[in-house]
C-alpha cells in the first residue's frame, strides 16, 4: 500500500495514468525528425536514379548510415505514438483497438530491426 494520498498519486498523471510521457515523446521525436527529414529528403533527391554502386557508397559512409537509421528509428517511434492516437480516436471496440495497437508496435519493431540489419550489412 502506498502512503501517498489519492490526490498525490493521480497528480500529473491524468486519466491514462501515464502523465505527459506520450505527449513529450511525440514532441522530442518531432524535433529530432526535423533536421533528419531535411537531410533525408535532400539525400534521396540527390541520389534519385543513381546507380547501385553509388547508393552502396552512400550507405557505406558511417555518417549517412547513422543518419538514415536515426531517421528510420525516430520516425518509427513517432509513428507508433501518432498512430496510437488515431486508433484510440476512431476504434472503440476494446478487442479491435488492442489488436491494432499491438500490430502497430509489432510492425514498427519489425520494420526497425529490418532496416538496422539492412544498413549494417552495407555499412559494416
Amino acid at each position, binding site marked *: 500500500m502506498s502512503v501517498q494520498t489519492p490526490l498525490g498519486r493521480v497528480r500529473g498523471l491524468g486519466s491514462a495514468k501515464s502523465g505527459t510521457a506520450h505527449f513529450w515523446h511525440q514532441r522530442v521525436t518531432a524535433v529530432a525528425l526535423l533536421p533528419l527529414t531535411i537531410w533525408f529528403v535532400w539525400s534521396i533527391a540527390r541520389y534519385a536514379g543513381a546507380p547501385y554502386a553509388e547508393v552502396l557508397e552512400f550507405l557505406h559512409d558511417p555518417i549517412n548510415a547513422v543518419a538514415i537509421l536515426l531517421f528510420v528509428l525516430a520516425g518509427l517511434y513517432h509513428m507508433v505514438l501518432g498512430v496510437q492516437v488515431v486508433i484510440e480516436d476512431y476504434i472503440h471496440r476494446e478487442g479491435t483497438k488492442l489488436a491494432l495497437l499491438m500490430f502497430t508496435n509489432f510492425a514498427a519493431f519489425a520494420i526497425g530491426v529490418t532496416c538496422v540489419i539492412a544498413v549494417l550489412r*552495407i555499412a559494416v
Partner: protein
Amino acid sequence: MAEARSGGPKARPRSPHLGIYRWPITMGTSILHRVTGVGLAFGTLLVAWWLVAASMGPESYDTFARVAGHWFGQLVLFGFTVALIYHAVNGVRHLFWDVGRGFKMHTANTSGIVAYVVTVALTLLVWLVAYRSMGVI
C-alpha cells in the same frame, strides 16, 4: 427585431448549413496533418524496401529501381514526398502551438496558408533536384 419591422426576415440560413459552410483553414491543415501522418506510417515500408533492396545485391536493387522509376512508382514516391514535407512543415506549426504561440485566429490561418505554400515550393524543389540528378531535365 429589425427584420420583423421591415416586413419579415430575409430567406437566409439560420445555422451553419452544409450549403454555405466553408471549411476553416485550420480544420483543413489539421485533417491533412493526420492523413499524411497515417500515410507516412505506410511510407516507412518504402524506406525499408529501399534499404533491404540495397543490402541484398544488384538484382534486388534493380527491381526496386525499376518499380520506383515506373510512372506509378513515381506517383507513389511523389505522394510520399508531399506527405513527408507537409507533415514536417505543418509539424513546426504544432510545435509553436505547443509552446503557446500562434493561436490567434489570424495567425493560425496565415501560418496554415504559409504551410501549404512552403510545402508546394519545397516539393517542387525536391523533384526538380531529383529529376536533375536522374538527368531527365
